[in-house]
Every structure is written in C-alpha cells, then in structure tokens.
C-alpha cells in the first residue's frame, strides 16, 4: 500500500472541493472494496476523502411516489427498510444475497454501485490487465474465465460487474443522482451509468473525476412478484455465476435483468416484451450476440434455465 493522506468532510460540496484540490484523490465510504485494492496497490490514491459521515444516510419518499436512497445508506439498512421490503422486494432480496452481514453493515449504496470487478487477473498485479493498467492486455481472455462476461465484453476486457444490488436497481429503473465540483447536479439512469468496456475498460462508469454520488432514486412502485435468484457454487458469500432479477405481473408481463454476465447489470428492454413467451425467447433476446469462452459457455443455458425456474415460481 502506498502512503496517502486523509481527510474527513461534512458536506458534499466540501467533498467535491477537496477532490479538486488534491491530485490523485479518491472518495472513501465503507471502504469494503477500496481498502483491499489499496493494500494490493491496484488502487493507489494519494489522498482519501472520507465521505462516510455525510448526511446522505436517509431513505425518503419522492414527490412522484418513489424513494430517494441517500448515497451513504448502508446496505443492511436499505435491505431492511420496510418501504423497500414492501414495494421493492427485488432490491431487498438482491442486497441480502450479496456479501456477508458484516460487509453489508459497512458497505454503502454508492459504494456498492462503484465496487470494482472481482476478476482474479485484475487482482494480481503480476498479470496484464487493461482495467488495472490500460494497454497492458487482458490475461483473462484465454485464461481462467469460468466467471467472466458472455455479453457486452470486448477484446480488451471480459470482466463482470460484481454487484447484486445494481442488478435489482437496473430492473427497477433506478437513477443515480450526483454533484460535481462546480456544484452541478445531474441524474443518470442506472441503464446509462455503467460503460461497456470497449477499448477503455479502466473506466467503469460515466462519472466524471470528482463527481460524487449523492443518492439513488427509485420510481414509484410497479407491483408484481419480485424474485432475485442468485446462482452460485456455494450457498452464501460468493459472487454470482449469474443472477436473475425479475418482476413479473399477473398478466405475465414484466421485466428482467441479469447479473454476472456482463460488464454491467444486463438488461435489454426489448427482451421484457418477450416475457409472456417464456424463458427461451427472453434469453435469446437478452443474450443475443453473446460471445462466451469455452469455460463460461454454460452461462447461456444457465440463464435460460434459471429464468424458466423464476417464471415458474412467479406463476406460483
């Protein structure tokens, strides 16, 4: 780990201002991912701005009947919020499917969105990795790729996004609210928040340097049956091989998003329309153009089968 300086800020404006002042600064909240990455010198910030005490820890109703989740709301608190459990069961279920109780107590909403891939080659600084060191190559391609992306990847990177929460938020049409150093606020749909790897896999999101997440908003509840099915080799404390987030209405319509298949929570709106036609049709649209490796080709039938099971479960 490289030496770094540290400060704690009290307001979002102070956070973004501090960022502008020091080169190589990073925000830190729960630190459940960033500190690991710093110990391995995958992340080498010169300065940490601790935003964990910002007053962004509330879950409040929005004027259009949705919820605004403060960026610093802990995963445990979000998962157990009665409004979330009642109206956005998908989100609550996705959250508790992730990490462990201890990590969820510490991890924040914004930090969860911004966690980095768990690609083992990203974590080994002896290995080439375009996400860690642009231009160095990708060791995962042609290597151990059982856990890697099957859609939306590129010749530069086949990493997946590890979050469960973000998959649910994608299905729920959540939006990410931010503020930048100039005090300019914007709202970005989760759909547009993550980048495809392309030739710049080191850029995970569309956030500009120093832009701070202040909240995630959920539109008003859509009802339906909410199922988050996470598939993994062991029963707990494992990243998803794939996951299916589905909201299914009584008439068979609904929406579906996937985790563990791509560089971002994976949803193709056109596939939602296929839901009444069943898992095969939905999967064909969702995973059109998939380019699996020999080691992760199983994810295609796995998605279809898991989705079929989810739809059967939703039908009761």
């Amino acid at each position, binding site marked *: 780990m490289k030496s770094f300086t540290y400060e704690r800020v009290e307001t979002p404006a102070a956070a973004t201002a501090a960022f502008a002042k020091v080169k190589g600064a990073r925000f830190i909240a729960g630190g459940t991912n960033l500190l690991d990455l710093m110990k391995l010198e995958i992340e080498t910030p010169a300065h940490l701005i601790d935003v964990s005490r910002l007053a962004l820890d509330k879950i409040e109703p929005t004027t259009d009947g949705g919820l605004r989740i403060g960026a610093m709301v802990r995963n445990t608190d979000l998962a157990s919020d009665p409004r979330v459990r009642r109206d956005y069961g998908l989100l609550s279920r996705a959250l508790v499917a992730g990490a462990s109780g201890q990590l969820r107590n510490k991890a924040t909403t914004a930090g969860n969105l911004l966690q980095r891939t768990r690609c083992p080659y990203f974590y080994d600084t002896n290995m080439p990795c375009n996400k860690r060191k642009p231009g160095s190559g990708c060791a995962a391609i042609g290597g151990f790729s059982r856990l890697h992306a099957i859609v939306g990847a590129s010749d530069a990177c086949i990493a997946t996004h590890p979050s469960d929460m973000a998959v649910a938020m994608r299905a729920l049409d959540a939006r990410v609210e931010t503020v930048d150093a100039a005090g300019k606020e914007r709202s970005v749909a989760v759909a547009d928040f993550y980048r495809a790897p392309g030739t710049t896999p080191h850029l995970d999101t569309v956030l500009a340097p120093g832009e701070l997440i202040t909240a995630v908003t959920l539109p008003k509840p859509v009802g339906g049956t909410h199922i988050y099915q996470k598939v993994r080799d062991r029963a707990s404390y494992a990243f998803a091989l794939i996951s299916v987030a589905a909201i299914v209405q009584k008439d068979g319509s609904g929406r579906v998003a996937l985790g563990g298949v791509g560089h971002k929570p994976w949803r193709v709106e056109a596939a939602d329309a296929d839901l009444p036609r069943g898992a095969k049709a939905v999967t064909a649209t969702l995973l059109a153009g998939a380019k699996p490796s020999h080691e992760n080709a199983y994810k295609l039938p796995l998605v279809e089968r898991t989705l079929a*099971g989810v739809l059967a479960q939703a039908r009761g």
Partner: protein
Amino acid sequence: MKFDTPATTNPIDQLKVVGKPTNRIDGPLKTTGLAPYAYERHDVAANQAYGYVVGSAIAKGRIASMKLDEARAAPGVLAIVTADNAGKLGKGNFNTAKLLGGPEVDHYHQAIALVVAETFEQARAAAALVRVEYARGKGAFELAAALGSAVKPPPSFGTEADSSVGDFAGAFAAAPVQLDTRYTTPDHAHAMMEPHASIAAWSGDKLTLWTSNQMIAWSVGDMAKTLGIPRKNIRLDSPYVGGGFGGKLFIRADVLLAALGAKAAARPVKVALPRAFMFNNTPHRPATIQRIRIGATADGKITAIGHESWSGDLPGGGPETAVGQTRLLYAGANRMTAMRLAVLDLPEGNAMRAPGEAPGMMALEVAVDEMAEKLGLDPIRFRIINDTQVDPEKPSRPFSQRQLNECLTIGADKFGWAKRSTTPGASRDGQWLVGMGVAAAFRNNLNGPSAARVRLDKSGVVTVETDMTDIGTGTYTIIAQTAAEMMGLPLDNVVVKLGDSAFPVSAGSGGQWGANSSTAGVYAACVKLREAVAQKLGMNPVDAVFADGKVKAGRQSVALGDAAKDGELVAEDKMDYGDLAEKYQQSTFGAHFVEVGVHAATGEIRIRRMLAVCAAGRILNPKAARSQVIGAMTMGAGSALMEELAVDKRFGFFVNHDLAGYEVPVHADIPHQEVIFLDETDPTTSPMKAKGVGELGICGVGAAVANAVYNATGIRTRNYPITLDKLLDKLPAVA
C-alpha cells in the same frame, strides 16, 4: 517404554477422565484472544521489525536483474534479504523447492526477497518497490498434457509406487461384469485460517523461532540444515497453531526469511505470508487423474481390482499416493495399483489432510457405487459382500479391528437409507431433486515414537511437557485427560505445555498419528512418575493406587502432592513401538451418508444432511473427536462441490489465490451433520487403545456427495469438483 505386545488392562481403562466429552482446556484462552498465535507474540522479543516477502511474478525461468535501490531508500527500511546476500543456504529434507529462490525461479510466488522495515506498512510498501526483470522459461503446467512423460516414482515413506497380486489383467478380462472408469481431482489448497507466520531472534549464534508449525523436531532439523548451523543452536516454539492440515508439517518461507531477516537487520523480525501466498508460495494437494477397473462375478464378488493414479510435482517431488487404500479396502484375488509422476512447474505439491487417501477415496468409492449399480446391488450390500478381515495383498496379516460393515449397517439404519430411491433422478422436493449417497471411510492408523516429561509439585499439580503440537485438534485436552487418568487427578490439576523444541520430542501432528501417539508418550512418562511417587512414599509401585488426588497402598493413603514435598518429582519417557503394526493392519473405518438437493433449474447442489459412523478405536474425547470428524466432512464437502485451484496453463500458477476465489464451504453449505462413534478399543495400537480420527472423516465423504448427486439426478460426474456447469446439459428441461 516399548509397546510390542497388545495392551492388557491398565489405568487408562478406568475411563474416569479419558473418554469423556470434556471441553477444551485451552478453549477460554482461544475464545478470549489470550492464546497468542505466532504473529501476535509481541512480548517474546523486544524491538521486533517487520518483514514482507516478495514473490516471483513468473512460474519458471530466472531473475535477469533485481534492483533494490528504490526499496532500500524507502522510509523505514532496515534490510533486504535476497539469494544474492543471504549466504549459502541448504534445503530441508522436507522441502522440494528452495524457500528462497533466485536467480533460478522454480514456481510462481516463490519467495525471492524479504524487505525488513520498522513497520508492517513500510515493509509492504517497500516490497512493492523491488524492481525485478525476469527471463521467462518454458514450463509444464498441465497434468493431462504431461501424462506421457510421467514415470514410476521411487518408494515414498517406504511404500512402493506399484503393487500386484495374482493375475489382474487376466481376471479383469474374464470377469462377467466390468467397470473401467477415469476420475480427476483438482489441486486443493489447505486454506487454513492462520497463514504461516514466524518471529525470529538471534542471540549470538543461537536462534529462537516463534512460529506456527505441526512438527517441531522435523522443523528444527530442516532449519538447521537450511542455515547450516547445529540443531542445538535452534529453539522453535509453536504452542498454538491456527490450522495446518499438512501445510505446516514443514518449514516454509516465513520462518527461514524471518531468521535471515533478523540476522540482516540485527533485530528480531516477524514475517507472515500474505493470504495470496498461501496458494502459490506454500504447498498444495496435487491434482490427480485416476483410472479404476473392477471385475466381479454376477453375484457381486470382486475378482479383479486395479487402481492407477497420475499426479505431478516439481523435480524431486513425490506423487499424490491416491491408490493406497485400494490395496486394502476390498477383497479380490487379483489386484494391481500403480502411481506415475510427471514433472510440473506449478508450486510444490505436498501433504494435505489424508494425503493420497482423500482424492483416492473420492475416485474409488464412486467406482464402487458405479459397479454396484451395474451389478444391480445396493451399494452397501456390494461393500459388505466384498469385506475382508485381512490385508488382501498379504492375507496372513489380519486387520487389528475392522467394523466397516457395522458402520455401514448402523449408518443405513440411522440415516434412513431404506427411503432412498433406487432409481436415480426420481425423488423430488419442490424445486429440488433429492438423492442419497453412501461411501466407506477408510484411513490407516499410524503410530510414531513420542516422548514426554511430567513434573509433580507439592500442591499435587502435574505438568506435562512435550513438543507435541495442538493444531486446533484438542491435543492439550486429551494429554491433560491422559495425565489426569494416570495420576488419579482431576483435570484441573494438570497443566499441559506444548510445542517447544526444548521439550521431549513427540510424534507431532500429522497423518492422524498425533492423538494416539502423543498420549501414549504421556502414558509412558506417567508410568515412570507413578514409580517415582511410589518409591518416594515407600510403596510398592505394583500396589499403589492413584485415585482422587491420593496414592493408596494397603492402609496407607497419602495426598499425591506429598510425594513432592521435598522437591519436584520429574519423570520422562518415550513410547517406542515393536512390530505390531506389521503383524496387524491397523486402520480406522467409517461410513459416510449424504443427502443432497440439486436445484432442478439451476443445477446448484446443496447438501441437506450428512452422517458419519466411525470405528476408530477408543475415542479419547468424543467432543474433540466429533469436531475433527465434522471438520473433515466439511472439507470433504468442499472438495466434492467447490474447491479447485484454477490453473492458468499459460502463466503456470493458481489464479484464484484468495478466499473469495478459492471457495471453501460456509455454514450455509453444511446445514446438518451427525457423527456416531462405535464403542471400540484396539489393544494393538498402544496402551491408549486409540487410533487417529482426524483424517478418517475426509476419506470417502466426497464420494458420498458425488454418489448422492448421481442418485438425485442420474448424472454421473467423474471430474471434481461437481459444479452445476457439469450437470446443466444433462438435467431435464425446466417445467
């Protein structure tokens, strides 16, 4: 004391203390954090500096250049050790690759430097500033691709690579029912909780090492050999070990580099291996490819049984001895086994819990299940038909005790085996396909010479000193129980001191030989102490009865402590063994029963319940023994369902080198476990009449899981771990 005739009645048979499910005497220290592990021994030497290991970034080749100037100039750096400046180093008897590499590199993450600094953070930061250029060499990293070059290895620990009885080829060819199948098991990591860690301090030419190690005397010897100094100049202390599983049988880079770093920095130095190093720097259980052939008559009698195994290791290494149990487990007149060893440039392969037996039984006990199905026999019935009470390779050698059939039938009854559907894939519970599997558990008992010293003070407290280790197994407690039973004391009157090379040399912890061997050594020392006490009190040792804190002979009754009122009484002895282990095959047996659910849509496999019935001689402490067995069952479940070191065949290393990537079972994976011990004593093993139990539990359990998955789905997967991707294309369509 020499143990060369079967034991008769002795004080242990009183079972006032031995055999009770006593809580661990070190438990409160552990649960309150007062039992210091190696890296936490801040008080043993003042002014400790911190060492951080630099590992090789390549698997095979040489270091072209190593620039240390940036690291040297970093804040707090005191010294940097490399092969260039470490002086001449030997290699320990138990090490295959050098612990400090350079200029030649033998495997990925082989240690090539140690940076010593004032703080841990400084050492770690400076270690990242060591600039190394490599000349990458060509290596062999894939077992399947190296099979053609595999050769017959020399005997290992006295066991030949091949065995042959009768005419296997002829009998197999003539057998009316035949099975010929191949199985693979992957490389496994010990993944113990406490990484290797050591503190080293020099005083002149004397070296003290506080470390985490299973085999104290071996490790003193290997440190002496590696450093080229006399054994007597080394003291090694390892009172608490946070898990070993064979990974700490030998010295590793932490202890050598701590010693070299302490010399270079002229200060005590502590070194822990980072978690990533646990996978590529330290040894692992090697992968195997196994072929099993069984020939039988139509009514299920085995006429031919053959087991071949291929594994790989670095040059000079040894095979994973996966065929050993097939030599002994089932009857059959015509038999063959063979092991072949290929050179692989992966990290060093070496012992991990039930080395050989664990992966061997994962194959053999699936083959037996497959053969039973071919024969139309219940797999328990098939095993019972082929039971043998003698060593099938040497029928003049009986098993000292063999209750495998009893384990199987009792287990079947307790587990509800009769409810198992004999048609695979036919039982369903909601979204889950449900199946049951069974396998034999079988691991040999090993005894080793073991010495101990016992001291009696005037307050009637007995202190036991032996270099025996407690690697989380409960050794402190069973040794205390042994001494208490022998001396007629309550457990609270016994103090146990372990793990210090200044104490008499024990059998150490490994190969499930520790419990019986080390307590037998304490037994021997206590026999001497009893004699000393009787003599001191003017009693005839034969008449003296040690009970309730007193010694009685005739009408004389004296508090035990009175024998030491003029000064401590000290006795020391070692238990040595005659040839009983040659006359008798001493083994431990069991039966594993597993019920699994396989998710009908996703193919996820989840264990629902497990039962082990074990026959392993006298159980010295049923509570500690149960912990050993359920821990081993858990490890076996991991090897069946998730554990696999993923080999990068291009770069030659284990990719998933952390506990997020190398998955071991969590609580949610193991919902219900039960262990039953048969009431058994084996007088041929030692006066304790006990056997090892720490590795029995892992032998066969993986196969029981695999057989249950087959029963649930009708899909036979012969390549471990059994993960859902290997089932998906054969599972029925989702309704």
